């Protein structure tokens, strides 16, 4: 165990790391909420359609073609 404790003790001011980390995350989360709130509807539509506009999908446009009971 000594091996870990000694290494950690060697890092200067390590006792402040947790609180600094928490502050970074808190600020990031607030910025994130602001960002999400200000996104326009167009942007959201554009982002969320990203998986759907494949060239290959035109070929399989109608999904029933894969699973239809003919």
């Amino acid at each position: 165990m000594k091996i870990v404790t000694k290494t950690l003790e060697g890092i200067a001011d390590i006792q402040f790391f947790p609180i600094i980390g928490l502050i970074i995350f808190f600020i990031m989360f607030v910025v994130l909420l602001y960002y999400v709130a200000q996104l326009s509807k167009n942007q959201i539509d554009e982002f969320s359609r990203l998986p759907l506009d494949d060239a290959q999908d035109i070929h399989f446009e109608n999904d029933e073609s894969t699973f239809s009971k003919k």
Partner: protein
Amino acid sequence: MELQKFTYDNKLTRLFMNATIFWGLIGMLVGLTIALELIYPLMTNGVSWLSFGRLRPLHTNAVIFAFVGNGMFTGIYYSTPRLLKTSMFSELLGKIHFWGWQLIILSAVLTLPFGITVGKEYAELEWPIDIAITLVWVVFGINLIMTIVKRRVKHIYVAIWFYIATFVTVAVLHIVNSISIPVSLLKSYPIYAGIQDALVQWWYGHNAVAFFLTTPYLGLMYYFIPKAANRPVYSYKLSIIHFWALIFLYIWAGPHHLLYSALPDWAQALGVVFSVMLIAPSWGGMINGLLTLRGAWDKVREDPVLKMFVVGVTAYGMSTFEGPLLSLKSVNAISHFTDWTIAHVHIGALGWNGMLTFGMLYWLMPRLYNTKLFSVKMANAHFWLATTGMLFFAVPLYFAGFTQSLMWKEFTEEGYLKYPNFIETVVQILPMYYLRVLGGTLYITGVILMIYNLIKTAQMGTFSKIEEDEAPALHSVSHEKDKGHRILEGKPILFTILALVAILIGGIVEFVPMFMVKSNVPIIASVQPYTPLELQGRDIYLREGCYNCHSQMIRPFRSEVERYGDYSKAGESVYDHPFQFGSKRTGPDLAREGVKTGPIYKPDSWHYNHFLSPQKMISQSIMPPYPWIINNDLDISSTPKKIRVMQLLGVPYPDGYAEKANEDLKKQANKIAQGLRDGGIEVEDGKEVIALIAYIQRLGTDIHKTE
């Protein structure tokens, strides 16, 4: 706007897909084998490499890293280039990743059944394999990040964020938890000990669930559900918030695996609080997945892919509701160490990971082969087999867990344990173990149907090795002014670093005080390092995977203290590299097994006969016999090296003790063997069983020593 042509490579997707199916079947069959072993303990009589303790790690590793691992890579290599409108960065790195990963799995198959293990759950693989995992993981990471860098779309779709988080976090978890000092090529000791090792291990273990079984599959969910339903995700805003909240909160929750243990209360409380908060982002994901199907429920009736996705995401919702519930101390007091845990993880594995994988495979195979699925009927049959199989597996185990726990805790009116014999509580729940086998068999039957269906599908079509696509170059679409998160999304490396920071915070808050503040592990003066013979015996205990069925952690409950002896203290395990608290009591706790005045003490001769034939000592026992421990000679050539590594780790053996250790070992072995011979048991000093008995009889005795 000039359009650039590029191609998607389907070969790698197909390789990973085949590996997913192959290892999935193997992992599940090993699971079925060990489920049968619990009903028929003599099934593999005397074959060491088929014993429960050695196969159970193979089952968990195969399902997690081979089945789900290959499953996630299948989806990642398919969706990433298509979402980013580019081919993967390097075909060569992709191949190295694939073959490297399969070699790692193969080396797990070739080591775990032979007892080559570190003895930490889900991190059993020895150090050379751990290094290989790190290297292959980095290859995967480079390929992923560089593909993002050379993309042709401005925005990085949310699925890719989950892939990035997976890469970054698994790398950190794996490295931090696996640091150990080698004794030989196939043996090492972790640098952490006891309660600190437990904290690191469950920080790893819990986040392996989070970042190996959850985040990559959420990424797959965000890609394949919209694809299969042919409609965009329900709320993209929700996906952004739930992503960051999930990766930040998950990392703190590990200590909920150590409730009522010797872990300091503050750490336990952190684990509980963050686990409860986790419901929000987890259900954010579930709701987003299910509501993506709004207006498409008519399709769900007919399309087996969507059906599987719906059950998969529902199982995710159920197990992420159950998780926080289980981390409440009052619930955990009942659920922990019982089959409830096994039921819980299988809702996740069979439901969430399994169903999502199957749905993805049914969706992918016809597309890769330019054809239709061979039989929709068969896929629907698979759906029902998998769903009922999962229920037949889990429901009996919930019942078993509840029943056994309540039996452990029940007192008579006179104040004695109502079921003082552990075996009574085992016999009571055996019928549930039969039902589990039924559930598992149903589930595997479904998988076999799927394999047939997919092979037939492949035979019907022709495989398209590459697909062509075209898109404008990135610079021609990025003319608008960026701000906020949009800048962040444009910079994958900065994004990666921020994800890393988010997941490091929880780890630092838990680890730094745990390692630095001395009061977390109060020193107990009478706790001494293991003798060389006990150390060798302990390594046999690890090799046989005893921790898979026996805990070494008596919780501070009246019922446990009454049954096993004084509750476990943090200071008792300071020389345990690795810790052996365990997480399941298929057999009784062993933390005070050696205490002569304790309630569960057995003499050496009992242990000898019990290892030879548990059923001879306890007729209804479900423990397998260990004849090879009786017959094998103990290898003492490793003793000096083991002592030296322990000294390096801070275990206070006297200077130069390594060279003298084997003298002490032989003396102690002779004393135990002589005792057995006096009792009429024919045994030589140098057998493995002597070392194991020495270790077992040492357990829990330190605090009872009188000066």
